[in-house]
């Protein structure tokens, strides 16, 4: 059987480039917002806790101390050649002061704000791209803001949390040994992602200019 010569070439149906990210973000934002509202309500009206708020006992882990396991006293749990050791202490305060509560919150809040805001920014970017099209100057701007937020936030949030954690631990020892240089930290994956998004934003800007040229071509 011969195929008709006038047959139109097969074309793949245009796929939505934002799928499945748009649906995923819609669900994620709703779940996170619901969790935040419910946790806030249980914290205010019940005994719930949220990001360190409402905790009656504050515990923090100090990883610096190291102890000999006393392997001689342990039953033979381990295979020959395995050396057991334990490090770190879990320090808890049952009746924390206001300052300790604040520091405890500060050990968790920055990362939460960083991630939550980043997801909201990405959600808004995807919604705008769905409405205005992918090659729109507004998307470039939003992508740049998100890139800078992650790149800078990856350093600031980690450093702030480390400073709060160290201060909280130091406040529990009889003699404090403050070392501000030890507070510095960064989340490599976030910084790398942020820098990557800034590069993608520059590429997208070129795409926007090409799109504008194409639209102005007769």
């Amino acid at each position, binding site marked *: 059987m011969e195929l008709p010569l006038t047959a139109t070439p097969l074309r793949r149906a245009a796929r939505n480039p934002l799928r499945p990210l748009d649906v995923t973000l819609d669900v994620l934002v709703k779940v996170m917002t619901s969790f935040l509202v419910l946790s806030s309500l249980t914290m205010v009206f019940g005994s719930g806790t949220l990001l360190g708020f409402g905790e009656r006992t504050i515990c923090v882990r100090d990883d610096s101390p190291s102890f000999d396991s006393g392997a001689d006293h342990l039953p033979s749990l381990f295979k020959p050649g395995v050396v057991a050791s334990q490090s770190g202490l879990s320090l808890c305060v049952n009746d924390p002061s206001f300052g300790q509560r604040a520091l405890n919150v500060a050990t968790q809040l920055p990362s939460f704000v960083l991630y939550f805001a980043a997801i909201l920014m990405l959600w808004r970017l995807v919604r705008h791209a769905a409405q205005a099209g992918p090659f729109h100057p507004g998307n470039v701007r939003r992508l740049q803001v998100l890139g800078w937020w992650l790149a800078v936030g990856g350093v600031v949030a980690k450093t702030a949390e480390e400073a709060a954690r160290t201060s909280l631990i130091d406040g529990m020892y009889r003699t404090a040994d403050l070392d501000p240089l030890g507070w510095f930290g960064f989340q490599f994956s976030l910084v790398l992602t942020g820098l990557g998004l800034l590069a993608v934003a520059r590429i997208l800007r070129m795409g926007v200019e090409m799109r504008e*040229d194409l*639209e*102005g*071509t*007769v």
Partner: protein
Amino acid sequence: MSGDDHAVEVGLDALLAARGMTLTQLSELVGVSVVNLSVLKNGRARAIRFSTLTRLCEVLDCQPGDLLRVRREGR
């Protein structure tokens, strides 16, 4: 350099008037939408395809230089 940074003027208005033709008629003969021809006529186009230019010149019986010219300062 932005897309609007040029000095090319499109003389489509004068050619249409000289041929006694409307933009709609030209659109049908050339096979380019009235909207796109309007963009070209009003100087809002950023570029013109060789294929469009060829069809325009065929239908209007002209050369590209009759349709396009570069505006020079002080002239």
